[in-house]
């Protein structure tokens, strides 16, 4: 297996080179600013999307778009109408983690993948490594409709250029089974209680170390970057804290499906997850509860980013403009339960769903958006040590 990864990477790189030589069908020709399309809004997001797409793509654009995105971001609910109306084939791959995405882009993926949906940590690394191209905002006239506090996040900007189209954000909440966890938990620290022995699931990711660090009070409101740049001494304490949680962990989850399955098969009663899982569990009739613990939590903000090697730009900008629309974002919220970047999406939502939507500004100091750090590899090693401990 050692070599197969390598072979895969080599083949990927080779394919990248080939496709780069293969000429571009979309055409990188200069395009003037797009005009904003306005439609007569109804209360049906799906119908509005169809009406809108007819005007966005009066004739098929053709070609393909390759996405590498978080699970749920290319659901057929809103991807299929785009594919049909614009005549563009969307090929989507899921990413396992931010590092996974950055590694794939660096290993030649920036040439074969057109659009990615990095979180607030990976986007910095992707821009800094020259793997992204700045957005031509004139071609995304609806950009200004997106949440101002989201557009203001510094990680998607570099030297006056904007590299990311705000899409969704969300905290990593504590999810629990309301029938089995009573009273409801209020803090991360509650999870260390021996009564949860073998009853929790945590993400197989350094996010679990961040959570342990917040429990230890290492997250400082005055310096949000500190959580991602802990000293060796602080990391040692975090490791000890994470090791102390091990007896309570049934399994580390790798995908959203893993976690929901663990809840549904009665293996676990609580854990750190994503709002997506709460949505999926509730949709399946499972009594899932969700809180932001008192210690605060880490959060992600996802943007659409155009890769350096993206070639089918007409299709890519059509997708970006479509992605910024309120009905598209409402459909995405249906799938993911995330907080979406276009506040007017609330127009299509039920009162319950509107209640899930917040402005970034409302969270104040409760959430810390993931950041990139040169210490990241050290965190990964410590995380592997936590997993390896018996």
């Amino acid at each position, binding site marked *: *297996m050692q*070599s197969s990864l390598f072979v895969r990477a080599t083949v990927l790189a080779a394919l990248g080179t080939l496709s780069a030589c293969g000429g571009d069908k979309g055409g990188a020709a200069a395009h003037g600013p797009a005009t904003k399309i306005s439609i007569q809004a109804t209360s049906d997001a799906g119908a509005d999307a169809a009406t809108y797409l007819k005007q966005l793509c009066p004739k098929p654009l053709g070609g393909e778009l390759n996405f590498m995105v978080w699970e749920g971001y290319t659901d057929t609910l809103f991807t299929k109408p785009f594919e049909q109306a614009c005549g563009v084939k969307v090929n989507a791959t899921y990413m396992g*983690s931010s*590092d*996974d995405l950055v590694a794939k882009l660096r290993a030649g993926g920036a040439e074969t993948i057109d659009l990615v949906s990095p979180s607030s940590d990976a986007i910095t690394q992707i821009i800094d490594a020259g793997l992204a191209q700045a957005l031509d905002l004139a071609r995304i006239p609806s950009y200004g409709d997106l949440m101002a506090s989201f557009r203001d996040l510094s990680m998607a900007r570099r030297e006056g250029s904007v590299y990311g189209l705000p899409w969704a954000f969300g905290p990593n909440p504590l999810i629990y089974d309301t029938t089995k966890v009573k009273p409801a938990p209020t803090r991360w620290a509650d999870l260390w209680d021996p009564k949860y022995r073998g009853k929790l699931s945590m993400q197989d990711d350094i996010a679990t170390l961040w959570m342990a660090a917040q429990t230890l009070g290492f997250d400082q409101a005055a310096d949000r970057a500190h959580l991602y740049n802990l000293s060796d001494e602080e990391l040692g304490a975090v490791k000890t804290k994470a090791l102390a949680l091990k007896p309570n962990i*049934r399994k580390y989850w790798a995908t959203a499906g893993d976690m929901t399955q663990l809840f549904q098969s009665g293996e676990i009663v609580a854990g750190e997850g994503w709002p997506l899982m709460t949505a999926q569990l509730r949709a399946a009739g499972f009594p899932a509860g969700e809180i932001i613990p008192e210690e605060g939590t880490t959060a992600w903000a996802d943007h659409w980013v155009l890769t350096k090697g993206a070639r089918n730009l007409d299709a890519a900008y059509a997708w970006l403009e479509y992605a910024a629309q309120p009905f598209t974002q409402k459909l995405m919220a249906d799938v993911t339960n995330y907080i979406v970047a276009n506040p007017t999406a609330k127009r299509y939502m039920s009162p319950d769903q509107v209640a899930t939507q917040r402005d970034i500004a409302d969270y104040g100091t409760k959430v810390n958006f993931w950041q990139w750090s040169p210490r990241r*590899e050290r965190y990964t090693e410590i995380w592997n040590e936590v997993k*390896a401990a018996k």
Partner: protein
Amino acid sequence: MSATRSPRRYGRLLFAALPIGWVTVLLLLPYLFLFAHSFFRLVDGQLTHQLTLENYGRLFGTALYPNTILFSAGIAARVTLASLCLAYPLAYLLAFKVRRHKNLLYMAVIIPLWVSYLVRAYAWKIILGQEGVLNGFLMSVGIIREPLAVLLYSKWAVMLALVHIYTPFTLMPIYAVLEAIPPALKEASTDLYASRWQTFRHVVLPLSLPGVVAGCTFAFVLSMGDFIAPILLGGNDSALMVSNLVVSLFGVAFNWPLGAAVSVVMLTMTVTLLTMARKLEDRWGGGPAGRRLDAPTTGGMGRGALHA
């Protein structure tokens, strides 16, 4: 004459070029790249071609890496032993005791190999879970009151799945060797008043050792390189085997040089094991049943090769 000979020669060349090219491009070159990468240095998260021994220093200087290799070897050794205990009697039965439907029975052993690895691993989740088939059965007959958590998401679940998946690999070479033992040898032993046990101990067992070695090598190398069972069935004590570490280093950590160094150490262990196995086969493989079963040279690639 020459006009007819040369196309034939070209044909022969072409015939040889295919396997040689295959092995060179898909096996030798990747291994060479891997070996080279293990000496490269990572500067500010970027791969540079400066040569260094740092990766090996860090590998052997950080408890995580040797410990994980040893842990994986321990799992692999137990899986091998269990697979051998299951496969040998089964191969013996198939080779000597079963008269009718022999092929059918052999196929029954082999058919699970046609089912996707993932499907088989998921099947164990359904069987072993706290609300699974096994716990449900044990509780309904009153053997246990509370579901047993240790059945799933534990070291045992990982080993069980690996034994299930790699036992056919152990069985096949043993069966091949046993089948090749001429009945005359066993008859001669019986004629000389040897008991059944003596015949087995002095005739059958020594002749079957090359198959045992080949089968055990298969089971050990493949289970040591496995990374799917720990992800799907591992719990808080068994979520990390050495291949998961390699996946993490090549993936999320983006430290290819260290990942390559771990892989080279693994590869060296595999090659040493294969060489030893071959030596043993050479020593034991002189008899009439001494058909040499070359150990798998692609063993180090483990499941990944099949899933790539």
